[in-house]
């Protein structure tokens, strides 16, 4: 039993915060009777993957918002600035303590099954996804419709005639083609709830359902596969882990090699080797009461406070 719940057994506060965050971010019951408050909050992007098409969501998704601005030919200063501030302060902390989709993956991992490690090279895929699907494609790739046949075609904006380029239908490609959090929270409920959408269900919808199933099944066998391999937000915030105000440190002399930190890491890392890795979601599972080797601290410089 202890092994099953090792993500939370030494860190119940994180489970508590994740549940509260799930209700605050995705349970609009507390603003249900105050539509103006919800209307206001929906315009605020928060640093977790949180599809703004989810019927019960309260805040905006930074990945979706960033792409949306690129699609309409602008740059989202608020979103980018917010991510710089949060990344600088906390690194990937929000992935471990607030992200609803990360929480869903952790819950799936609690299902008893053989467990595997994700190969290290796959961690770099999320940087490619960030660049290609979140930045380059929303800027450069559009969908056009043939006037005679009515068929849709994906094309580069630069290949269109100059007078058509301005009106080209660009897309938020990460949301459209990949985001399983959007499929789980928005795609499935919208289609189940609204019969008019049934006729719109096509190959793209089933592709996204398949991708969601792959991620959730993979989450049973490996730790947070989406966060490790796909998440563009995690890729961006992870870049700050080595410089952020909130840091971890490892004191070799105090380590008894009990391996508890390795066992309880939801990202499958060895915190003794790379305690400020871009993959670390700052869940603090490795900062345990019985272990004095890994400590958290906040410092602008790399100097560790003496009382640690």
């Amino acid at each position, binding site marked *: 039993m202890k092994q099953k719940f090792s993500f939370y057994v030494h860190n119940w506060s994180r489970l508590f915060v994740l549940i509260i965050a799930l209700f605050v971010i995705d349970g609009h019951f507390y603003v249900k009777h105050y539509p103006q408050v919800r209307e206001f909050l*929906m315009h605020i*992007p928060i640093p977790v993957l949180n599809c*703004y098409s989810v019927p019960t969501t309260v805040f905006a998704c930074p990945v979706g918002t960033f792409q949306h601005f690129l699609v309409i030919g602008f740059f989202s200063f608020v979103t980018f*600035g917010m991510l710089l501030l949060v990344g600088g302060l906390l690194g990937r902390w929000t992935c471990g303590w607030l992200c609803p989709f990360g929480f869903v993956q952790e819950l799936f991992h609690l299902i008893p099954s053989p467990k595997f490690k994700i190969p290290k090279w796959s961690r770099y895929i999320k940087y490619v996804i960030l660049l290609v699907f979140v930045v380059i494609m929303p800027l450069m790739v559009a969908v056009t419709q043939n006037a005679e046949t009515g068929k849709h075609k994906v094309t580069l904006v630069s290949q269109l005639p100059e007078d058509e380029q301005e009106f080209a239908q660009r897309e938020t490609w990460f949301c459209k083609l990949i985001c399983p959090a959007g499929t789980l929270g928005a795609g499935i409920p919208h289609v189940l709830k609204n019969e008019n*959408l049934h006729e719109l269900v096509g190959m793209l919808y089933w592709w996204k359902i398949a991708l969601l199933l792959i991620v959730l099944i993979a989450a049973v066998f490996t730790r947070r596969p989406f966060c490790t391999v796909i998440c563009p937000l995690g890729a961006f915030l992870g870049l700050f882990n080595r410089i952020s105000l909130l840091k971890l440190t490892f004191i070799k002399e105090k380590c008894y090699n009990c391996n508890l930190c390795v066992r309880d890491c939801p990202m499958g890392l060895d915190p003794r080797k790379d305690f400020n890795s871009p993959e670390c979601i700052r869940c603090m599972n490795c900062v345990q009461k019985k272990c004095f080797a890994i400590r958290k601290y906040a410092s602008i*410089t790399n100097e560790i406070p003496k009382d640690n």
Partner: protein
Amino acid sequence: MKKSASATIKPILLGISFVIGFIFILVGIGMEEFYEISGNALTL
């Protein structure tokens, strides 16, 4: 004791990210970006 190069650069990078982040948020608010960040997009 002499500081390593990374120990010097990291606080500078952190400071830059804070300053740029703060300025960007102010610029975004000034440009009334929040009106454009909408919540009802339907993606399938």
